[in-house]
């Protein structure tokens, strides 16, 4: 009897306390506490800068906290997919243009959820918005940084053989580049190769677009790769290797072109705009900078970018919309891009980089003449599914295990299996 009374009394105390506590919360008008799960990856210092950039937001919204997970990029896609498949997607994630196209169905459309979205989005580059738009025409992410493929050169190496690379690169073609490179390699003991080319189909596609080719057809509903232009681009890439101007150890081995560029072994590096940030810190023993891409049929870069998004299954969508909009406004975007050394996706961004502003401008110039279809091709989920396959087929061509015509046909056929 005593036991029953004690338990009953305890239960009563607990219930009264809960009711009282609930009443207190309402009376004081405290906002509900929200812990936003944030999934991020770093190219350099992006996760740290994200938190710094949002410091004022967190101060103004003390009820919102960030539970940030930073995942290495190599594991990022798998982790994100598994979280979505497991029904526990993050509230907010940093995603690339490839992720956006791959995850259209899982990303939460922002239309109707962010106030005046159309007006807000009109401040971003069209190519960036194209990546962030799903097949239904809805925005499923907001662009943060734009990236572009381009050429970085060892200016000291060119200068040492009497070539003014800044002047030459204003109007140069690839044939001009070949002539200059042969001179640089022949007369400069330290420079062994002309060009380090990132081991990436995305970077390789700069040559495809410059040759006037495309991966996809006009309607982007099938491959268009068994064309003379694609074969021409593949053969051109092979020529770089057979003339020993590109090292075999990058595409046929596992060496990193950035390491070769930093060590002065290669005179040029075709990579992404993010290398400006890395090289600004790492290279002190020679003069380097960005130059315009040499021209073939056309001059082109390849756009890409990073985005911020939320997911259909996210727990805290309302708070996520608020964070996404705040992080993407002019002030926060400029701060983030300046501190992470990235090109902004906003047309109205006016960023005073602490250094290397000229190099960003060069990448921006290449991007400004880049055809819009380059973004349309790379936003295709089907094309992204054969990313490794494209790379393997190109290497098989370089190794002469097959002709470049066969490589083009194989890529065309394999890609089409995903459009069927």
């Amino acid at each position, binding site marked *: 009897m005593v036991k029953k009374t004690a338990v009953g009394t305890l239960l009563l105390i607990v219930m009264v306390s809960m009711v009282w506590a609930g009443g207190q919360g309402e009376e004081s008008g405290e906002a509900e506490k929200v812990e936003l799960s944030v999934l991020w990856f770093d190219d350099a210092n992006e996760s740290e800068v994200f938190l710094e950039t949002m410091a004022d937001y967190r101060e103004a919204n003390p009820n919102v906290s960030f539970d940030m997970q930073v995942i290495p990029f190599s594991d990022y896609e798998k982790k994100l997919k598994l979280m979505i498949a497991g029904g526990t997607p993050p509230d907010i994630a940093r995603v690339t243009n490839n992720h956006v196209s791959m995850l259209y169905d899982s990303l939460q459309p922002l239309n109707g959820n962010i106030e005046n979205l159309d007006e807000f989005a009109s401040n971003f580059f069209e190519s960036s918005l194209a990546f962030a738009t799903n097949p239904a025409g809805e925005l499923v992410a907001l662009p943060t940084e734009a990236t572009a493929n381009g050429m970085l050169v060892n200016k000291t190496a060119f200068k040492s053989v009497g070539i003014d690379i800044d002047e030459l690169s204003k109007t140069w073609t690839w044939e001009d580049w070949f002539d200059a490179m042969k001179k640089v390699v022949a007369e400069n003991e330290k420079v062994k190769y002309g060009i380090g080319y990132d081991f990436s189909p995305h970077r390789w596609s700069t040559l495809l677009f410059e040759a006037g080719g495309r991966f996809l057809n006009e309607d982007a509903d099938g491959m268009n790769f068994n064309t003379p232009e694609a074969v021409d681009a593949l053969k051109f890439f092979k020529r770089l290797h057979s003339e020993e101007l590109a*090292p075999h*150890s990058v595409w*046929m081995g*596992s*060496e990193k072109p950035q*390491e070769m560029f930093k060590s002065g072994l290669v005179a040029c590096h075709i990579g992404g705009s993010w290398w400006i940030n890395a090289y600004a810190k790492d290279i002190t023993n020679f003069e380097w900078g960005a130059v315009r891409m040499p021209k073939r049929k056309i001059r082109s870069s390849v756009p890409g970018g990073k985005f911020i998004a939320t997911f259909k299954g996210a727990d805290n969508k309302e708070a996520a919309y608020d964070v996404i909009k705040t992080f993407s406004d002019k002030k926060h975007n400029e701060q983030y891009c300046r501190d992470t050394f990235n090109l902004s996706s906003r047309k109205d961004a006016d960023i005073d980089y602490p250094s290397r502003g000229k190099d960003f401008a060069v990448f921006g110039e290449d991007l400004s003449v880049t055809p819009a279809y380059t973004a349309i091709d790379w936003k295709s989920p089907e094309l992204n*599914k054969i990313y490794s396959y494209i790379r*393997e087929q190109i290497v*098989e061509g370089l190794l002469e*295990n097959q002709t470049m015509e066969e490589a083009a046909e194989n890529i065309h056929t394999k890609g089409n299996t995903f459009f069927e």
Partner: protein
Amino acid sequence: MKKIKTHGTFEQTLTPLLFLAPNMLIFTVFIILPAVFGLRMAFYEWSILGDAHFIGIDNFRMLLQDQMFWRTLSNTVVYVVSVVPLTIVASLGLSLIAARQIPGIGTFRAFYYLPTMLSYVIVGIAWRWILGDDLGIVNYLLTSAGAVKVHWLTKSSMAMASLVFVTVWNRTGYFMMMFIGGLTAIPDTYYEAAKIDGVSRFQMFRHITLPLLRPTVLVVGVLSTIEAFKAFELIFVMTGGGPGYSTKFLVQNIYQIAFEEDRMGYGASMSIVLLIIIGAFAFFQFFMNRKEYSNE
């Protein structure tokens, strides 16, 4: 007639089961269920983010015509049949030295065991730096000495040989410790008797050590075979499967199919085939060992 009690009391039966329960639960949740789920997946057209459609044995039919499957399977078999015998020979050879009671032998053992404690990713990165064509240490030393550089990782045959060498280097220490355990379990009296009979060292190894080490050889053989079939991280970091397809193995192909091409069902069917192959190899090794025992 007196009834003989063959079972314990209820408590005696239940207690061990209760002790086993947590482990069984973990095993079921993390091993059995995913395996069953994987088996089921192999009969579906299954995208990680989409709906699953039952397609019967179509995935397995497709495998038969998939050139990449056969190519990566053949690369895997070449790797396994190179790595396993070399690992057994190297670890057995080292254990014969390391099992002796001589001064400084502890350091010797630790030195050879050390690579085992490194993650495959670290090992892959380190050897990529050592064997790189242009930035690698070995080629730097070779060219400094006036020799020509070797295409360790950019020539197909050399890339496979380099991978086999690094795998053997990495795993020898681990299996050496197993062999040391086996060697120390052999009674000294056999060797003493053989010595009195004037038997040579090689004959002792041939007629005493090797037959008594057979169970250890079997375990090392089975474990290294399973490891070699499942190899992924080291290869992915060191060669990425290249150059071209030269070192692309079945597990990397499964990874690419499942996660990049988003064909989880097809990837699962390849995993099932891999499981059957590994099981068959392990069974064959056990069978051969048993047969030899029964012949004695």
